[in-house]
């Protein structure tokens, strides 16, 4: 359990660092809230950045299809599920 909590925190820190979100702390990120637009307010270029981060740190290769990625990027928990699924392989 603590491992998944750690992963959640790790991802939050990674997002903040990658996107240089200086005025945001890990606690500010609601794991169920949308990352893009209304939630954290990230844009499409931020999404590309997160994609590159996932590849660099976790070796996750996303499909080029936008719809699938949109689901993985829906919230922090969705992102976490993606990383966990990749680790299980």
């Amino acid at each position, binding site marked *: 359990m603590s491992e998944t909590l750690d992963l959640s925190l790790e991802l939050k820190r990674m997002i903040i660092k990658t*996107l*240089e979100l200086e005025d945001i702390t890990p606690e500010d990120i609601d794991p169920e809230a949308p990352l893009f637009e209304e939630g954290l307010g990230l844009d*499409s*270029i931020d*999404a*590309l*950045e*997160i*994609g*590159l981060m*996932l*590849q660099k740190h976790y070796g996750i*290769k*996303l*499909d*080029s*299809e*936008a719809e699938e*990625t949109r689901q993985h*990027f829906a919230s922090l928990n969705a992102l976490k599920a993606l990383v966990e699924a990749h680790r299980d392989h």
Partner: protein
Amino acid sequence: MPEIRPCALVPVYDHPTTVTGVCQRLERLGLPVILVDDGSGDACARVLDALHRQGHALVRHAINRGKGAALRSGLREAQRLGYTHALQVDADAQHDMQDLPSFLAALEAQPDTLFVGYPRYDDSVPRARLYGRYATHVWVWINTLSLAIRDTMCGIRVYPVAAVNRLLARHDCGDRMTFDTEILVRWHWAGHDLVNLPIKVHYPEDGVSHFALWRDNRQISLMHAKLFIGMLWRAPLLLRRRWRARRETTKATQRTNARSTHWSSMRERGTLGGMLLLVRLRRWLGRWPFRVVLWPVMLWYFLTHSTARQASTAYLKRLDPALTHRPARLFGQSFRHFLSFGDTLMDKVDAWSGQIARERLTGPGIDAFESAIAQQAGGLILVAHHGNLDVVNALTQRHPQLDLTVMLHTRNAGKFNELLESASGIGRPNVIEVSEITPGTAQRLARRIEAGGFIVIAADRVPLSSSRTRAVDFLGEPADFPEGPFHLAALLRCRTYYLSCIRDERRFVIDFIPLESAKALSRRDRHAWIGRCMQRYADTLAAQVRRAPLQWFNFFPFWGQDRESDVNPRSPDTDARYENRHDPR
């Protein structure tokens, strides 16, 4: 179904010895005959009068007006007399009447179809004449973008009278020898059915032909040029139709989504078939057929595409303000600008068909590019619609270890390359089609660049899907450039380069110039870095453009000021600024 009432239609111009025999044989087939006397001399006119007295219909031109005019008169008469189909037969008895019943049987089954004979020659045919026909065959194949019509000069055919007369009301198809060919091409364009049937042909020893060599050849050449332009205009339609037909016959199960009828996919398909044909023809026939046809085509574009022409003159005046006071010279320069675009098309065809020798490539860019490849430097290569980058392919062939990916805003681009590859036998670089860059695409690009590969992307045109632009100074005035390619470089934190290939007489000068590097770029500095890189790109481009002004191929208002001063800023051509292909095609 309305009753089928066929007749025979025989245009006659001084065939006194053969026409009576032709009429007798048609009578035996049970066909009423309409004769058209196209201003024949007294001897033949007397023969025709006699035939008329025997009950054959006769239309008469007081003076010779040509075969096309004669057939039009005859077809009108056929409709007036209530015939549904007209079997055209030449009066010189070249054709074997034994084949005619097969035409009559065929039209019973398919009354809306135009049936055309294609000749099976016996040994009496003069060789030169046989080869001469081939030029026309090839033109017809190009102009219909299909092989549907086997022979357009054969004088035996069955016309559905009413439909053909409707077509002729819009396009008269010429008075003389051009008629036979043009009517078939236009019939095909209009989407009507056409079926080829074999017919035996022999050349009688006393055959009288009325082919006036010089006049008719000139008219036939003009007709082909005219039809070529018409084909370019209709290419998307023609190819979409073919594609649909093929899809129906192969019974492809997957339902095409709504996008497949969108103009952008159609247009790609249009150029696809046309380019493939051009590549094949270039290999078979050499360069001259293109030269012959490009000049009138570019003249036509120049005269009719006013937005492109105005963009060209505005651009030329910007480079050389003295032209403002010399309108004649400006006009001439602008036409040369269009012609230069035509030359580029030829070079592209040459490049695709592997006809450009490595020795013709020159310039400092070759060494610079090759050393960047050897060092596996990796990065984003920003290009522009200046010069001719297809030619660079000859260079990339030599580096099997080079990983080059071209990003295009067109769909089907990958398929297009496959087809070109099969036509030319030359490998093409990888192509990524982007309508939007997804995180998955960005990952792929990052992997390639990390491995030392290069990504090529045009940075002088704003794609339809993008609204991110920034105005930077370009040739003395601010102009909008897309931010996308520069954003991508910042995101991938890679080097950027400028690559160009400019034609200089027989040679192609290649430049490969490093721009800004985004390695170790922090997110905070990104906005400023993008601005710097865009300005550097624009400055590099401007210097190149000044070296070869007529190889600038953005024929649309490029600067904001030019755009606003337009009478109709939302005309389709102006919108091309925001599309992904915008040549004066």
